[in-house]
Each structure stands twice: as C-alpha cells, then as structure tokens.
C-alpha cells in the first residue's frame, strides 16, 4: 500500500502541513492521516474550508486507548464532505500524562457532545471546550470506564439511592 499515490485529500494535507502529518495510508480505500495534535484546529479548519476538500460534515469523534503504547491515547475524527462525497479519518495521538488536545468546536459546532463523550469515557481533555463535563455517566462517577485499565468488575456506589 505504501507505493500507491496518496489520494487528493491526503496529498493536499501533506502539501499544506508537511511534517505535521505524521503518517498517512489509504488501506481498503479509507484515507487516513495521523497528525500532530498541536495543529489539529488548523488542520480541521483547512479541511473544512479548502475548495477541493470542503469537509462540512463532522460525522464522529472518538477516543482509542492503546494501553502500553506511547503516546497512549488517540483521538479519531471521521469527516465527510456532502459536497465532494469523500471521507477522511484524522487521528491524533495524545500522551497519558498530558491528555490534552484543542477542541474543534470552533470548526464544527456539532463536535461538542462527541468531545464530551471522549472525555467521559477516556479522560481526554479538550482545551477551550465550553462545557467539558460528563455526558453519559453521572457526575459522581469516578474514573473513565472505557480505559483499558479500568477494572472490569469495578462497581461504584449508586448515587441518590440509600442501599
């Protein structure tokens, strides 16, 4: 797969951001780029506004926990262009000791709840998010349940119920 020409989307990304695009591949026809987390907002703004790309639909944002790897966490952005009918996946690694990445709400306002979900489940912090609090679990819940080191059998006291 490495000797293939990168697709239009990936080629434009590499041309514009150079070394901040850490790696790319188009395995199984899925354009994917691993990027430097420091420039995520710039990259996303470019993807949205470039006349050849026009990624106007932020389909999903999620986290991944690669326990044992360094950096440990990854934030994955799934983007689609309603205009151009093409997709791209943007991935950014985030280290455990500083799990912070800039919020992309200024680019796509719909990423609000996805970022809250990633925070709730993985503890990834989104800088400048206007309302970064838990979305699925209750406020008193401790820890982040989709982290690979969250004990499978751990049960937390039921809040608001006298047991």
């Amino acid at each position, binding site marked *: 797969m490495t000797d293939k020409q990168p697709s239009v989307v990936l080629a434009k990304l590499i041309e514009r951001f150079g070394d901040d695009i850490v790696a790319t591949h188009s395995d199984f026809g899925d354009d994917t780029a691993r990027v430097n987390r420091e420039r995520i907002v710039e990259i996303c703004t470019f993807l949205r506004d470039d006349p050849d790309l026009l990624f106007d639909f932020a389909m999903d944002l999620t986290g991944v926990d690669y326990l044992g790897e360094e950096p440990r966490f990854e934030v994955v952005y799934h983007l689609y262009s309603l205009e151009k009918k093409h997709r791209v996946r943007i991935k950014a690694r985030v280290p455990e000791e500083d799990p912070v990445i800039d919020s992309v709400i200024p680019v796509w306002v719909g990423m609000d709840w996805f970022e809250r979900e990633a925070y709730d489940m993985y503890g990834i912090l989104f800088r400048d998010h206007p309302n970064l609090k838990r979305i699925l679990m209750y406020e008193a819940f401790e820890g982040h349940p989709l982290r690979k080191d969250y004990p*499978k059998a751990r*049960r937390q006291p*039921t*809040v*608001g119920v006298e*047991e």
Partner: protein
Amino acid sequence: MAVNHAKDGAPGFLTTRFEALLAWGRKYSIWPFTFATACCGIEVMGAFGTHYDIARFGAEVIRFSPRQADMLLVAGTVNYKMAPVLVRIYEQMLEPKWVVAMGACASSGGFYNNYSVAQGIDKFMPVDIYIPGCPPIPEQIIDSIVLIQKMIDSGGSRARDRWPIKI
C-alpha cells in the same frame, strides 16, 4: 368467604372477614405501572394488548402516575444513572405495593455485566416477583399477576416486609 345461596334465587347474605373482602377486591383490581426501558417493554405491550389481554385478570388499568398504581412492573435494563429515578418512582407509590422485576436485566443485570448497568434492581428496592427470560413471554407477565393475586389472597408477606435484606 362463605356465601349463602337461597334456593329460590332470593338475595342471600354473605359472611366474611373485612380483610378477606378487601383482599378479594384488591386482587382483581391491581393497577400496574410499567417502567419499560428496553425490549421487555414490547412484551408488556403484547400482554396488555387484545391477544393476551391482561384485563381478564383485572389488571388492565395502566396508570401513568405511580401515585395511583399498585404494582410496579420494571421491564428492561436499569443502569446506575437510572436507579435513583426508579427508586423515586417506587417511593411515590402508595401502600400496599408490589414490585415485579421482569426479564434477566431487571432481575440480575442480564448479560450487561459492566460498569454502567445495575446488577438487578433488588440491590436498591424490594422485589416480590422475578420473571426469567430475555425477554419473557406475555404469559409470564400474566403468571406474575396471578402470583400476586395469590399473595394478596393468602395474606402472604411481601418483599417490602423483609426489606432491607441483611446478609
């Protein structure tokens, strides 16, 4: 209850204890409140529909306020975030009240053995009847009502009388 029938069809009289008369009235007018959170709720609808018609057992008056209900039918998965809501509903019901945990999830958490799902509603409220199944069939809901009727009839103790369970 003993009923004296006059042979000519004239009105007779009946002797009973007040408790027995009350129980007789109560057992044919169980008003259920359904707390349906998952697929079990669909089976509840089937049980209340025309085919199984739970009205035959006097339990067709579904209440949408817990304050008017006698029987809490918990149908579906209850997670920890929902538990305080369920307990609040239970506490709003007037005595006497019965609780039915319908299906594997409400009874034990079912196959959701994870961080978010309560491992059975009996962790935080007394349960009188457990219905096994995933989801159970409507006959089992009817069976639970008949069992509650028997409990009322015999004056059997309710789970609430034994609550909280100390192990």
